[in-house]
């Protein structure tokens, strides 16, 4: 086995770097936090919940941490805040720490010890587009459309716009956002080309060869931008899809749960420097977040209504209770009145949602390569090394083990730390049926009809 070699050497050097004086046994041994006053940033989305809950339920204070939580204007401002130290940590798009470490966009070493949730996004189209798509969608016995809706239904509409010479614009939240890759995945699976990036030529618009033109809009402004007619559809996290239903300006057609069942979503990002300078603080933050995630999923989502109440406060997400509750409490409303059960629409803890798997990072890297953000071929080793630089299960394990030690959690709630190697088993539940194995990124990239293949460079 040569593939895991870089991991072993890295893990060893990282263990030294984090100064495993922590080698956790009890809280006393864990040591007091080096930095007690922290500021964390977030974007107004329901999946920032673990941070809000850790604050409101006193989990941060239990660790001796005094945390201020600040909403940020957009993902760029948030990332810059973490890089320049204005923020100590933040709710981030999974692609952000990876892209920053790789140097796509602002270069900085950002790591993540904690993955924040699974799923939670949706793709919404405007009412007009929905009316045009509807005839192409098969119906159930009760007359409602069959889900999941594939982009095949959208393809004739996009082609019509193309023939008329009108650009078909769609919104996503950031070039390296999960939403960008999910929207691209869904479009490409239905034969609609979402366009390539060519950073080596200075083209970072991502619209080369595109049928649908994707551009960036901050999440809370998505509904307003759709309403203004600047875009015909968007991919965003909650509550901004349900908001479109409530406002009657658009129809969510598919959730990311249907595009890729249990896909990793946000992560908690900090700088590598922070983790090295304040090892105890880092582990303690992770502990508080793990406890918050456990609380969110406890007893089959029993605490969700309370969580929704907290999130609807104006300093957190601030949307109406009903809008947030729609998706957070296990349902999702597609067309107005078409409310369906999606119990796993937001997963915060079960299915090892919070464990930072290398394979999750590698999936994002494969998509970056597929769409040209990584402009040249890279060996499988490269993917694995980069993933191990950014995703830090070692810190997570230290936090989890100390929680188990204090009886705040049980070992059964976590992956088996003795045997797991940082890779989820090959994942099969994609909308196009393609299987993803994180250990073979290059072979995976080859499987797509639309997308760059090995040896291809724009």
């Amino acid at each position, binding site marked *: 086995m040569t593939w895991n070699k870089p991991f072993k050497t890295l893990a060893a050097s990282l263990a030294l770097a984090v100064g495993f004086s922590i080698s956790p046994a009890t809280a006393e041994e864990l040591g*007091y936090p080096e930095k*007690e*006053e922290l500021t964390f940033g977030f974007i*107004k989305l329901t999946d920032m919940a673990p941070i809000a809950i850790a*604050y409101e339920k*006193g989990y941060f*204070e239990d660790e*001796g941490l*005094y*945390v*201020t*939580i600040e*909403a*940020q*204007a957009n993902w760029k*401002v948030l990332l810059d805040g973490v890089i*320049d130290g*204005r923020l100590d940590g933040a709710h981030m798009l999974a692609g952000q720490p990876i892209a920053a470490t790789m140097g796509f966009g602002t270069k900085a070493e950002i790591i993540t010890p904690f993955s924040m949730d699974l799923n939670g996004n949706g793709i919404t189209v405007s009412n007009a587009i929905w009316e045009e798509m509807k005839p192409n969608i098969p119906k159930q016995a009760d007359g409602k459309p069959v889900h999941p809706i594939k982009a095949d239904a959208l393809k004739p509409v996009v082609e019509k716009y193309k023939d008329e010479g009108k650009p078909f614009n769609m919104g996503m939240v950031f070039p390296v956002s999960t939403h960008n890759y999910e929207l691209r995945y869904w479009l490409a699976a239905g034969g609609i080309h979402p366009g390539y990036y060519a950073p080596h030529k200075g083209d970072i618009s991502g619209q080369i060869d595109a049928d649908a033109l994707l551009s960036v809009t901050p999440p*809370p*402004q998505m*509904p*307003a931008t759709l*309403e203004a007619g600047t875009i015909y559809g968007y991919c965003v996290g909650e509550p901004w899809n349900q*908001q479109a239903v409530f*406002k*009657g*300006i658009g129809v969510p057609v598919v959730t990311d749960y249907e595009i890729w069942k249990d896909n990793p979503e946000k992560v908690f990002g900090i700088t590598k420097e922070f983790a090295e300078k304040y090892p105890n603080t880092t582990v303690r933050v992770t502990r508080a977040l793990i406890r918050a995630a456990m609380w969110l999923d406890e007893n089959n989502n029993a605490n969700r209504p309370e969580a929704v109440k907290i999130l*609807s406060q*104006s*300093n957190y*997400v*601030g*949307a*109406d209770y009903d*809008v947030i509750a729609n998706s957070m409490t296990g349902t999702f409303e597609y067309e107005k009145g078409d409310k369906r059960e999606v119990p796993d629409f937001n997963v915060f803890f079960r299915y090892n949602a919070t464990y930072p798997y290398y394979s999750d990072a590698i999936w994002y890297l494969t998509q970056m390569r597929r769409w040209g953000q990584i402009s040249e071929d890279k060996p499988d080793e490269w993917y694995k090394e980069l993933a191990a630089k950014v995703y830090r299960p070692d810190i997570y394990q230290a936090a989890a083990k100390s929680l188990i030690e204090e009886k705040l959690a049980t070992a059964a709630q976590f992956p088996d730390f003795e045997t797991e190697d940082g890779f989820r088993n090959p994942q099969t539940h994609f909308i196009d049926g393609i299987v993803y194995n994180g250990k073979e990124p290059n072979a995976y990239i080859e499987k797509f009809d639309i997308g760059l293949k090995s040896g291809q460079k724009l």
Partner: protein
Amino acid sequence: MNTTTVIATKFSGLKLPQLDGTFFSNAIRLVALPVAGILAFLLLWSATAQNIDTSLGKFPGPAAVMEQFNALHDEHQRSREKERAFYERQEKRNAERVAKDPNYQPKIRAYTGKETFLDQIITSLVTVMSGFLLAVAIAIPLGITIGLSQALNNAINPIIQIFKPVSPLAWLPLVTMVVSALYTSPDPLVAKSFLNSLITVTLCCLWPMVINTAVGVAGIDKDLVNVSKVLRLPALRHVQKIVLPASVPMIFTGMRLSLGVAWMVLIAAEMLAQNPGLGKFVWDEFQNGSSDSLARIMAAVLVIGLIGFLLDRGMLALQKLVSWDKTAN
């Protein structure tokens, strides 16, 4: 002589209301008409509001806004309650730690909760006053120097004319970057965001003051200047005894203009840079898109207007107090 006439002679400026025609016409002019105006506005507002459907529901009328004022007040009370609990918990935690670890120096950390509407108002006021005072400290000496020297005026005037119409939104990115580059203390005295807002406000409200001061100084009565020449007053005495008193009305007109500019600039700067204050409150509510958002924004608009008005009246009162020209209004 009865007491009334004594008092009346003492405060010869004060006129006791006479129950005659002028009293009533004054009452109508000063009270009844403004009240009627406000009522008509409220009526028009609530009538129009009902007919505007936004995607966030109906446009808020006066009743909805009033309700949000109450809600904001309740939120403020609740937040103070939470703050008290926060400090209690902290003291307990500190005590426990000292018991375990006697070398530990307990430290009380500031409340980490969200600032309330009232806190945001205070932040905005502090920021605008600091920015304005900094501008005063720069603009008045600069204005006097320019006013005294025609040559200097010719040299600096083009620069002033170019910078005067620049919008705060253009300055802000530059200010932000320069502040983050130069202000890198590990334990900063004031927050960077405060400094950003403050400097932006200063940059924008500097110009009306400089211009007015310079014009005021340049336009001093020649007789006064001649008196100063005859007495051979040294330069500083000249400024102190002749220039300043003579140009006070113009200086204050400039200051009033500037304070108005400062208040408008601050709200825009807070909104764009996400700096704490009323501007951020408005932006946050816009982003939230809840069914109360528009009413809360409207509440903020009214507060912003009211504060702007009070600031202006405050400057006017100050001007009347220190100036020999009592005709300003």
